[in-house]
């Protein structure tokens, strides 16, 4: 196994539930609960789960946009969870983020050249204004936009084009890791495919590693080499993308896969329809967090928390019953 670019160890993120200013909150939202995984250089790891499962928080905690409560985030041998102030800011050029909402992720009052150029300014990557302009233009070309549009404002672009600007901003500092937080879920289907392909191309060209966060399993499957499935703040299954999608071991993954809408009218799959809703992460169920909705739950699932154990090489499942 090669040296990992990023290694997350027992990461926990908790938010206190809003309470009065004088009463100390005793309840916590356990957004991320004891999560460990690693990403190798140039690899894409997909992170799938439903809303509220903590996948966005995990993505943000990895690059310290959210403060971890406990655990380590080791990036190139350095624990990011311990870094502070200027030291952290200097490290930031090595890992970047692409956001979900192409309308909220670009400053509406800045021109494209400044949105992308800001990255260069912060890390002093352009010695003069000519170099800055040339770099911005070449970045725009890289993401498939017309360099002459650099002086425009974000509202002059379509959703897909805005997302490309966001990608150019992330690329500007030549990061080694990009956390993609649902980068295509706000886009039209025909534009989604363009962005997914662009991300693939950029990865091959620059050797960037991705942590690709999404709720759409089909998109994640397409771009990732490995997949992490998350439920209520925990990872319930991980493995090679193809293996996880073809033979899911955890009952939650199975349900998730069967729920993916399929265009082909000939595939007569039996759908597994899960009963009930995702429980609140403030008071997660005892035992296996999935047991109230699980079609195969047994008595011990209500009391014993299943460990994430290896069922096959490179395959881990957190279920008592998985083989």
């Amino acid at each position, binding site marked *: 196994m090669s040296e990992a670019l990023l290694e997350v160890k027992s990461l926990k993120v908790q938010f206190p539930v809003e309470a*009065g*200013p004088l009463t100390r909150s005793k309840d916590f939202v356990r957004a991320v609960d004891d999560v460990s995984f690693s990403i190798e250089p140039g690899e894409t790891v997909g992170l799938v789960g439903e809303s509220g499962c903590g996948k966005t928080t995990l993505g943000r905690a990895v690059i310290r946009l959210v403060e971890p409560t406990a655990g380590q985030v080791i990036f190139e041998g350095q624990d990011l969870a311990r870094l502070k102030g200027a030291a952290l800011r200097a490290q930031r050029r090595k890992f970047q983020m692409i956001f979900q909402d192409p309308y909220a992720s670009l400053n509406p009052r800045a021109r494209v050249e400044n949105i992308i150029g800001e990255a260069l300014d912060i890390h002093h990557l352009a010695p003069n204004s000519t170099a800055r302009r040339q770099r911005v233009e070449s970045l725009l070309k890289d993401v498939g936009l017309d360099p002459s549009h650099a002086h425009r404002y974000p509202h002059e672009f379509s959703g897909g084009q805005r997302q490309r600007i966001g990608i150019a901003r992330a690329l500007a500092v030549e990061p080694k890791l990009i956390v993609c937080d649902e980068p295509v879920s706000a886009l039209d289907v025909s534009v989604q495919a363009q962005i997914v392909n662009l991300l693939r191309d950029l990865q091959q060209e620059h050797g960037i590693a991705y942590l690709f966060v999404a709720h759409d399993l089909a998109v994640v499957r397409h771009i990732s080499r490995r997949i992490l499935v998350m439920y209520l703040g925990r990872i319930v299954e991980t493995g090679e993308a193809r293996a996880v999608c073809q033979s899911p071991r955890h009952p939650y993954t199975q349900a998730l896969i069967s729920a993916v809408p399929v265009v082909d009218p000939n595939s007569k799959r039996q759908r597994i329809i899960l009963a009930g809703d995702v429980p609140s992460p403030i008071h997660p169920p005892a035992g296996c967090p999935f047991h109230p909705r699980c079609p195969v739950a047994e008595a011990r699932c209500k009391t014993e928390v299943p460990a994430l154990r290896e069922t096959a090489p490179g395959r881990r499942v957190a279920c008592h019953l998985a083989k």
Partner: protein
Amino acid sequence: MLTRLLTRFWWSAVTLLGTAFLTFLLVNAVPGDVARVIAGSKASAEVLQEIHLKYHLDDPVLQRLGFYLIQLAHGDLGHSYVTDQSVAEAILIRFPTTAALTSLAVVMWVALAVPLGVLTARFRSSWFDRTTLVVATVSLSLPAFWLARILQYCLAYKLGWFPVGFFRSFVDLLLPAATLAILMVGYYARLVHTNMVEVLDSLYVRAARAKGASETRVLFKHALRNALIPVVTMLGMDVASLLGGVLFIENVFALPGIGNLAVQSVLNLDVPMIMGTVLFSATLVVGANWVVDLLYGWIDPRIKSAS
């Protein structure tokens, strides 16, 4: 809900204490000799000395503040420098007038502003909406004392519709209250309008229409209650500016209320009276905010279960 109100109550107390602290420093820590104001500019040194002793004017400000707060804790607001009357008593005598004036005004403008706001929102961009906007903006720009003087002259003095002169009975409050209402109605009509416009664009109003609900039902049942939520908040916060307006109205119409008392005490440099009136109006504002909070939980169920 109960914990929320208790927390709120606790914070109100802290706010009031802070207000007392601030006002006391403001009123007492400034240069100038209060004794000269009390005794007049020609007073002898002995008299001044005596006054200094009587009112502890030579003590450090913080010590006097301490005394004042202890006094406050016993419910004592002190005595006027000028008339030696108990401040609390002076305020309580004048409070009913101010209370009657303001409540009458509130009823008047709310009764006018809500239908105006709803109708202008329903018939957006019509001539009716535009006229209301102009009138509302003008009403927002009127100086209270000037409007009061003009109305008093035209309606009471010239036309004789209202009694002129000193305050005798409740009827005499109609014109002053109407003046106050005119000053506030424009702002509130626009506030209701803005919120109604937003609510009328909301998805649940579309859903109500999709159900087949009539336009009246949509406006007054589905939309209005939601639109009133921010208006009620504003109403609580605006009590302070309302009291500011009251001050001028009472002054022009020579009504024996708190506002007039405040003006007199400022002109006389009557420190305990200034402190008293400021603290009293601050208490009113804080109290009003508290009531609004209560109303809020009732009007918006999302708040109630938030804690």
